C-alpha cells in the first residue's frame, strides 16, 4: 500500500474526486499554479486544467461566497482558506449563508461545499498561524466539522466531505502534515512513512463523517481528543503509565455519541483535551455530553485540558501548547479524583 504524508493524502482525495466527478472544483489563495502554500493541491491544476483548479483573489469572503453560488448551481466546490486564522472574513458567508441555505429554502437550494483550512499550533506561527477555531463552527447549526489526525483518515474523511450534500468545515492540523506530533518538540519529526496510519489505499474509500475511532484501548480512563491532541494524549498516557482509552473523535459535528458513551461507561473516568482556548471551547460540549449520558457511571470529575484563554503567543509557544506534561498531569488527577 502506498505511504503518504497527510499533505499527499489530502491531495490524493482531491484528485480522486476530481477525476470521478467533474462538478468538483478546487480553488483558493495560491492553490492553482503553485498548489497551495502547504502543497495540498499541487499538481491538480496541471492535471485537471485551470477551469477546475485555480488561484483566487485574496478575499476569503469572496472565496466562500462564490463557492456557495457554485454549489447552488450544482457544483461541489472545495475551497481552501490559507490558514484557519484567515477564515474570519468568510464567517458571515459560512454562518448566515452556507449553513442555512437548505433550511431557509426548505431544501430548494443546498450547499455541498467543503471549506478546508490548516489549523492548530506547534510551528512558531504566532497568533495568526496557530489558532484552532473549531468551536466557532461547531456552534453553528447546519455545518459539519471535521478534524483528521492522520493521512488515512484525512483522505477518507475528505472524500466523505466532498460527497456530503451539506457544507463541511475541514480543519487540517498543520503540525501533522508531515508527521505525527506528540508534543515533544525537541524530538526530530518522525515521518508518516514510519506510522501505520501513513498507509493510504489508492483510489476511492471513505471514512464516514460522524464516526469516531478508538486509537488506543484502555480501561482506566477515557480521553476524548481530536487532531494533534490524539498523538499528544497517546504519548502522555505512555509517559505517566495510565491505561487510557483514547478516542479520536474525527468529526465534531455530528458527534459520535455512542462511541463516547460506551467508552466512558466502561472506564468511569474522562479527560477532554484540545488545543483551542478553554472557555466555550468544544471541550465544554464534550463534558456536557458525557455528564448527560454517563453521570452515574463516573467515578471522578471530568477534567479539561486546553489552550490558555489568551491569544496564541510566539516565544511562549511551548508554555501555551497543552503538551504531554499538562495532559499527563491531568490524567493523574482524573485517576486520583
Amino acid at each position, binding site marked *: 500500500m502506498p505511504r503518504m504524508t497527510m499533505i499527499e493524502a489530502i491531495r490524493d482525495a482531491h484528485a480522486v474526486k476530481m477525476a470521478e466527478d467533474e462538478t468538483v472544483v478546487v480553488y483558493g489563495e495560491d492553490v492553482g499554479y*503553485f498548489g497551495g502554500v502547504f502543497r495540498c493541491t499541487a499538481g491538480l491544476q496541471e492535471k485537471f486544467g485551470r477551469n477546475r483548479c485555480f*488561484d483566487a483573489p485574496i478575499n476569503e469572503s469572496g472565496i466562500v461566497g462564490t463557492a456557495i453560488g457554485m454549489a447552488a448551481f450544482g457544483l461541489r466546490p472545495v475551497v481552501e482558506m490559507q490558514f484557519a*486564522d484567515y477564515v474570519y*472574513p468568510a464567517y458571515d458567508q459560512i454562518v448566515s449563508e452556507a449553513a442555512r441555505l437548505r433550511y431557509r429554502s426548505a431544501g430548494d437550494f443546498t450547499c455541498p461545499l467543503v471549506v478546508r483550512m490548516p489549523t492548530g499550533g506547534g510551528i512558531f506561527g*504566532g497568533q495568526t*498561524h496557530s489558532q484552532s477555531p473549531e468551536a466557532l463552527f461547531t456552534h453553528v447549526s447546519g455545518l459539519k466539522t471535521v478534524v483528521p489526525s492522520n493521512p488515512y483518515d484525512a483522505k477518507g474523511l475528505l472524500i466523505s466531505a466532498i460527497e456530503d450534500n451539506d457544507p463541511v468545515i475541514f480543519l487540517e492540523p498543520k503540525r501533522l502534515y508531515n508527521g505525527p506530533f506528540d508534543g515533544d518538540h525537541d524530538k526530530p519529526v518522525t515521518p508518516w512513512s514510519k506510522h501505520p496510519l501513513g498507509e493510504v489505499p489508492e483510489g476511492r474509500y471513505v471514512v464516514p463523517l460522524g464516526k469516531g475511532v478508538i486509537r488506543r484501548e484502555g480501561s482506566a480512563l477515557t480521553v476524548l481528543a481530536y487532531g494533534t491532541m490524539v498523538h499528544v494524549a497517546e504519548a502522555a498516557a505512555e509517559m505517566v503509565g495510565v491505561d487510557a482509552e483514547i478516542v479520536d473523535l474525527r468529526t465534531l459535528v455530528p458527534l459520535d455519541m455512542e462511541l463516547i458513551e460506551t467508552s466512558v461507561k466502561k472506564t468511569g473516568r474522562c479527560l477532554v483535551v484540545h488545543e483551542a482556548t478553554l472557555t466555550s471551547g468544544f471541550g465544554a460540549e464534550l463534558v456536557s455530553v458525557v455528564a448527560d449520558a454517563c453521570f452515574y457511571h463516573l467515578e471522578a470529575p471530568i477534567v479539561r485540558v486546553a489552550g490558555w484563554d489568551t491569544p496564541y503567543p510566539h516565544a511562549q509557544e511551548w508554555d501555551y501548547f497543552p503538551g504531554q506534561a499538562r495532559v499527563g498531569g491531568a490524567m493523574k488527577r482524573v485517576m486520583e479524583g
Partner: protein
Amino acid sequence: MTGGLRLHVPEPEVRPGGTPDFSGVKIARAGSVRRPPVDVDPAEIRDLAFSIVRVLNRAGEAVGEWAGTLDDEELLDGLKAMMRVRAFDRRMLMAQRQGKTSFYMQCLGEEAIACAFRKALRPGDMNFPTYRQQGLLIADDYPLVDMMCQIYSNSRDPLKGRQLPIMYSSKSHGFFSISGNLATQFVQGVGWAMASAIRGGDKIAAAWIGDGSTAESDFHSGMVFASTYKAPVVLNIVNNQWAISTFQGIAKGGSGTFAARGLGFGIPSLRVDGNDYLAVHAAAKWAVERARRNLGPTLIEWVTYRAAAHSTSDDPSAYRPKEETDAWPLGDPVKRLKNHLILTGAWSEERHVQAEAEVDAEILAAQKEAESHGTLHTGPKPSVRDMFEDVYEEMPPHLRRQRQEAGY
C-alpha cells in the same frame, strides 16, 4: 457542456523556464506627467491613474514638475535610510537562516516607498502599515536594537514575545500595530483619519496595503468610507507585482491599474514609480498636503517589484522566472538614487563604499546588542507571565487561575 461559456482565469505572461518580458508594461518617460494643484477636481486627473509619475530619468537626472522637493542633504539622508533597511534585512534574513528566529520578511527592491513616504509625514501622523514597511520605522530612526529584539522574541522584545517577527508596533513613531490578517489596517487607517477630522486636529493617516490584498473587502470598505467622509488619509497600494505565488492580475482583474480602483469612488488617484525615491517623496508630499488641507483622501499605487521571496517560508523559483527581478524595468531604488547623487556631485563611489561599511557596522553592532538579550531559542526569554498579561486591562479571575496553573 454545450454552450459557449468559459471561465476566464488570468495567468502571468511567463512562468519558470520562460523569458521575462516587460515590454508590455507601459512606462511614462520621467518628467512627462504633470503635477496638478493639490485642490484639483478629481475628474480632471483621471488619466494619472493610468500613467506613472517619475522624476529620475535613465541618466540619473531629476526632471519634470514633480522634481525638487528635497535638497542634497535630505536625499543623502534618504539614501542612508534605504541602505540601512537593506542591510538590516540582509542580517535578519541570515539570522533566521541560522535558526535565531522563526520567520522573516524582506522588502528588497521596495525600500524607497516607505523611506521616502516617512519623510513626507509629520510627527503625530499615523501609519497603518503592512509587514513590508519596515522602512517607515528605520527612516524615522526607530531603534534598530528594539526591532531586532522583537524579531528574536527575546527578553527585551517590546511586544513581550507575543507576536510573530516583524509585526512591530510603535505609537510614538506613528506605526500602528501590524496585524497578520491582511487588509484589516486599511479601513482602520481611514477611521483614524476620520477621528482626526472629528476632533478638528491637523494629524493625518496613511493606510497601506499590498496589490494582492486589495482584493479583500476591507480595501473596498476603506475606499468607501474615505470617499464618503473625505477622510484626511493617504491610501497606499504597494504593487510589487506578486502576492506570494499569485501575480497581480488575479487581484486586479480587468481594471487596468490598481490606481484606477480609486476612480469609481471619486478619489484622486496617482500611479507612481515606487523605485524612484524622488518621485515617491514628491507624490507623498502632494497627497499629504491634500489630506492636511482637508481636501480629502488620495489613492496612490506605488509601482515596484518584490525582488526577494515573499518570506523565509517561500521559494519563488517555483512560480516565476529567476531572471524576472533583473528584467524589471524600474531598476533598483538604491542604485538609482545613488547614481543621481553622484551625477549631481553630492556623492561618490568611494563615499558610497565607505557608507556601506558604516551601515554594516551599525547593523552588526545592533545585532550583537540585541542578541545579548537572547534569541528565539537561546538566552533570556520573555516571561511566561507576560503571556497572560494584556489580554484585558485587568486580568479576570479565570485567567489568573490559569496563570497559576501554568506555574507563574
